[in-house]
């Protein structure tokens, strides 16, 4: 008998006879099902089922803290109440403000940093690591840390502003002022997550082959022209991907806002995730909060889909 030549033949010979007999009777499709089944079961159990259960709860008056109360179907009442409640637009506006400014600043600064780091100057590896540090910290640490920095009497941030502007440090409160608090959380999120955008942009910049720039040089294209005609178009899909990731992440932002302002002062920085948490786990309006969660899910899912289509269009250009 010849020695087995392929890996498949060797594997077949190494398979114990009883197992081989059992597997031999299965079709390719059945084996595919066999391999994929654990993943499908997990996906159904921890993703699909809770989602469906949430949809179901959103049509009831269920409250998790009242196990003995009768659960009644309320139709689409929760959806109607949420969409007609004037108070819900406050959190929506706070979320929109936070999203718009964090993404704008992170994209601009992140791209700028990536462009500088890509120059490959002396020590650029060290500076890349330094820039990445905020992203590696836990949001809980960053939240507490910045809450101290913003403290009007002992906080370094206020002292730094005072040093440069001459304004008394205790004369303004970053987290306590209605005007400044929304910007305070934007600053912290930008500080923490700009490195992430930078990293993705850097990957984009490094993926541009040098010969394209060399060809442009031969054609006497100016650096500005090279930037607009080569760098930006080729790195744009990466930038858009970074925007997508940060957009989804910041739409559900909870930890930093919770630690820095807890939605305050008043409800100034109450983003939708804080509202959702209050409705679900403080007021225990499980049915109502399920409806709110579904509305947010549909909004994010819909917007993300439109965005991904745009991203693909840019990539295929």
């Amino acid at each position, binding site marked *: 008998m010849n020695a087995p030549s392929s890996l498949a033949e060797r594997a077949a010979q190494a398979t114990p006879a009883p197992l081989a007999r059992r597997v031999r009777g299965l079709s390719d499709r059945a084996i*595919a099902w066999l391999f994929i089944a654990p993943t*499908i079961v997990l996906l159904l159990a921890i993703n*699909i089922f809770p989602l469906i259960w949430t949809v179901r709860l959103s049509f009831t008056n269920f409250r998790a803290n*009242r196990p003995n109360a009768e659960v009644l179907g309320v139709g689409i009442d929760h959806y109607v109440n949420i969409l007609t409640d004037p108070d819900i637009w406050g959190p929506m506006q706070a979320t929109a403000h936070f999203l718009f400014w964090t993404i704008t600043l992170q994209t601009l600064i992140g791209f700028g940093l990536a462009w500088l780091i890509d120059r490959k100057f002396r020590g650029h590896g060290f500076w890349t690591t330094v820039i990445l540090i905020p992203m590696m910290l836990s949001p809980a640490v960053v939240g507490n840390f910045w809450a101290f920095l913003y403290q009007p009497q002992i906080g370094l941030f206020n002292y730094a502003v005072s040093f440069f502007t001459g304004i008394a440090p205790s004369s303004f409160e970053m987290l306590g002022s209605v005007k400044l608090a929304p910007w305070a959380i934007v600053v912290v999120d930008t500080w923490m997550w700009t490195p992430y955008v930078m990293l993705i942009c850097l990957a984009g910049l490094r993926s541009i082959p040098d010969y394209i720039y060399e060809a442009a040089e031969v054609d006497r294209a100016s650096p500005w022209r090279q930037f607009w005609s080569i760098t930006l178009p080729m790195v744009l899909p990466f930038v858009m991907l970074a925007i997508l990731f940060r957009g989804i992440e910041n739409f559900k932002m909870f930890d930093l806002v919770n630690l820095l302002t807890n939605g*305050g002062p008043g409800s100034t920085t109450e983003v939708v995730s804080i509202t959702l948490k209050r409705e679900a786990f403080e007021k225990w309006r499980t049915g109502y909060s399920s409806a709110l969660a579904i509305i947010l899910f549909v909004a994010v899912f819909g917007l993300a889909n439109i965005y991904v289509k745009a991203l693909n269009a840019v990539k295929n250009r």
Partner: protein
Amino acid sequence: MRSLLTKVPALSALALVAALVGCGKKEEPAAPAAASAAAPPAATTAAGKTITLCWAAWDPANALVELSKDFTAQTKVNMKFEFVPWPNFADRMLNELNSKGKLCDLIIGDSQWIGGSAESGHYVKLNEFFDKEGIKITDFAPATVTGYAEWPKGTPNYWALPAMGDALGWTYRKDWFAKPELQAEFKKKYKHDLAAPKTWTEFKQVAEFFSGRQIDGKKVYGTYLFTERGSEGITMGVSNVLHPFGFKYQDPNKPYAMDGFVNGPDAVKALEFYKSLYKCCTPPGLTNSYMGEGLDAFKSGQVAMMMNWFAFFPGLYKDPNVGGDKIGFFVNPSDKGKGSQLGGQGISVVSYSPNRAEALSYIKWFASPEVQKKWWALGGYSCHKAVLQDPGFKASAPFAAEFLDAMDQVVDFWAEPSYAQLLLAEQKRIHDFVVADKGSAKEALDGLVADWKKVFKEDGKLK
């Protein structure tokens, strides 16, 4: 494989349809919890067993650990403690109860939880146990029985034993008040002595007098007030002003009728007053501050007067820097009337506990007058009349007399099963007005009435 991928959404859709079909129907209510009827306690306890007591992590909890050593010595039942920091206490413990967890055999839960915990079957009803063991609830201060043990309020249905009496009170820098130059300046300006204020008018004078002043080379402020937004802080703080000014939760003759009581002229005036105090006389940056931040501000010599719970005063009095003779205590000032926000908790047996007999034996032991006396001596606030009516009680601690006065005028927040919704609505409305300068006091309180009406309508208590 493609057909496999098309089957997953199909399966999901099937499950979605099944779920939706189910929700149109009325579901069978869950079986009544074991706790809703008083289960007779087991006659004997098992020596060597361990029971867990859950409470907030604060000074009195340490005193309880010390006290409970006597229980273990007497019964051979070991005690384990689960103490959760205040900011997470309600979330953690209510999640535990709602999930029918077995972590806690005994729980010292907040007074507002009584309604929900009784109706949801989380707590064991203690009436039969009290009768059987000869524990007289009348041995405890009436305000604490109403506040910590009864549900529905005003009915003889007991779900807890009053464990830790507490109310919002005040501490002040007696050493600053005693400075002759400040005494003279204050008297010249306000025509009366600089002393612990008895009315809110006096309070504001003192607060304004100290604000911005340099004392011992440091800029100080008049007062510390609760402003915390997330849990209950600003509601507790503002209640101390609302009630003396004439605010009431509802028409005393018509339950849940709130118009004119919650948002009447007295309440509006009180809320404006609280905001004026916050604006004129509190240190900058305290826009979301509760008990801990207050203690920090006071201990670091930033404020002349601090609002806080009596429970912290024994520890504060022992503080090497600001304690002892440097500080004094006073009961919440009055205006049209009197009122202090009730704090404190009762101790309950968790109905899901597998160690109910041992937990009940702890309650029996804790209810005895001797244990209650030691509880007070260790730094816990006993609610037992044997302690409170003792002739030597007022002199037993520098804040004891003020504590007694406060307990005579306590008012508590709603203890309804929906208390959390009611509380968060007030947190939002008050914080929006006081800290975020949103709208007027009248608008804030009108909004609060609307929010509360919505909750009571959902609960079927208002039409």
